């Protein structure tokens, strides 16, 4: 049952869940889920560039996602369009440009399904190293900016007035999002990556009463999704990435029961 590829998949999945848990909390708190989507869509362009120029996929995706994030921040300031419109514009146009570029470079054989949904069972040792080292780095930076990031999430002006530099931590957090997408795109694919960010945090929100417990529950929910998803994909032969997300969905539905209970208690 425990073939080598499966162990590798487990390692990568667990590494991802440890990072997407805490990051996902901030994505939910700051209402950035669509922003994560946009970055993930732009990742396709990054992957294309990586293939054409023969550079590392994670690096290329990170650069393109960061550029798209910076463009967004710039457009937010210079246009009168609402952020959701800008996000849609960037998401779809970068996806389209990515596909057009793929079309232009006919020599490269692409597994488009693999890009959209990822293939966690095909990861190699290199991927494990990238996920664990990259993930550790992301968590370290997140820990360093935790206080100002959380304070400015609660109230931007209050944080700024009391010297927490919210603009700077916002930019750093954006880069962290680009980074997690870059290191995990190969495993879950660009359509499911925001699911990995949002589902565990959403499950955790339903069952926690303070920020710290939400982060812990979010990590646990992510780990459970990965384990249940991967094992069931092996047992019943379903695609792994989507199985992980489906497991998360089931956990989310279960977490609703707790909400229902506690609201009944109150009334």
């Amino acid at each position, binding site marked *: 049952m425990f073939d080598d590829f499966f162990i590798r998949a487990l390692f990568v999945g667990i590494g991802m869940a440890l990072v997407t848990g805490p990051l996902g909390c901030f994505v*939910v*708190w700051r*209402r950035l889920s669509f922003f994560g989507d946009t970055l993930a869509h732009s990742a396709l362009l990054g992957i294309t560039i990586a293939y054409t120029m023969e550079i590392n996929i994670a690096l290329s995706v990170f650069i393109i996602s960061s550029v798209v994030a910076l463009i967004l921040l710039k457009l937010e300031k210079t246009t009168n369009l609402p952020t959701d419109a800008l996000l849609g514009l960037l998401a779809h146009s970068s996806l389209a440009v990515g596909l057009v570029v793929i079309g232009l470079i006919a020599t490269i054989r692409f597994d488009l399904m693999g890009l959209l949904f990822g293939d966690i069972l095909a990861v190699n040792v290199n991927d494990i190293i990238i996920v664990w080292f990259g993930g550790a780095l992301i968590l370290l930076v997140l820990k360093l900016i935790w*206080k100002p990031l*959380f*304070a400015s*999430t*609660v*109230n931007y*002006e*209050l*944080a*700024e*007035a*009391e*010297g*927490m530099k919210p603009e700077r931590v916002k930019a750093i957090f954006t880069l962290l999002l680009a980074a997690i997408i870059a290191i995990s795109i190969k495993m879950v694919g660009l359509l499911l990556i925001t699911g990995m960010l949002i589902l565990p945090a959403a499950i955790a*929100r339903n069952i*926690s*009463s*303070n*920020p*710290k*417990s*939400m982060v812990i529950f979010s990590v646990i929910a992510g780990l459970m999704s990965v384990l249940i998803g991967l094992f069931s994909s092996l047992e019943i032969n379903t695609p792994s990435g989507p199985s992980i997300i489906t497991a998360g969905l089931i956990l989310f539905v279960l977490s609703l029961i707790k909400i229902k209970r506690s609201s009944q208690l109150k009334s």
Partner: protein
Amino acid sequence: MENKNNLLVKMENAGVYLNNKWLVKDVTLNIEKGKIITLIGPNGSGKTTTAKIALGLYKNISGKVEKYTKKIAYVPQKISIDWTLPIRVFDFMNLTSDLQNNETNEALEITGAKHLINNDLKSLSGGEFQRVLMARAIAKKPDLLVLDEPVQGVDFTGEIELYELIKKISETLKCGILLISHNLHVVMSKTDHVVCLNGHVCCSGTPISVANNKKYQELFGEDVSKILSIYEHKHDHKHGVDGSVEEN
């Protein structure tokens, strides 16, 4: 960054020009340690804007602002918190600082909000939330405390208590306080320096001199005589249910 003359913030002809109009202009004032400065003025006169200039929340301002401290606590006029966040009073108290548990408890005790410490922030009423905001600011033991309408939603007796408390804070912490208030007659007797705003500094000085100032009287009309009498005779009046003043 010690300063000889206890200066915390120095504003010279400061102003903000946004969307083709001046929110406030030519404001000159000094905030000093141990002193309470009160900003008064009608709605839209630039009180909050002036406070935000002092806090450094505007990127492009005209004039000059110099700040000599980084230990700042801010109680904003309104605060909207996104309820996607699970956050208790305890977490909120530690938002921008790492307090010892007894510091948190003490500050909440002072503002009468200690029993709320484990409550969810969203379950608080307006008045309770205001007390928590004050407690958070006090617990930081700041050099500069900026209070924008700190007693909103607090019931009347609580309001008096909180103003007494503000006075006490400035004495015990020796911090400078910039206070914005609508409730002129309560504030006046507690404050060292009053700045009356109406898009610019309309007049400023000691409370009594401002109350006597013609420009101020034009701005606030008949309220003035009440304030003057109260200020001069201190507490020889009663208050109606709505907080209005009933002469004896």
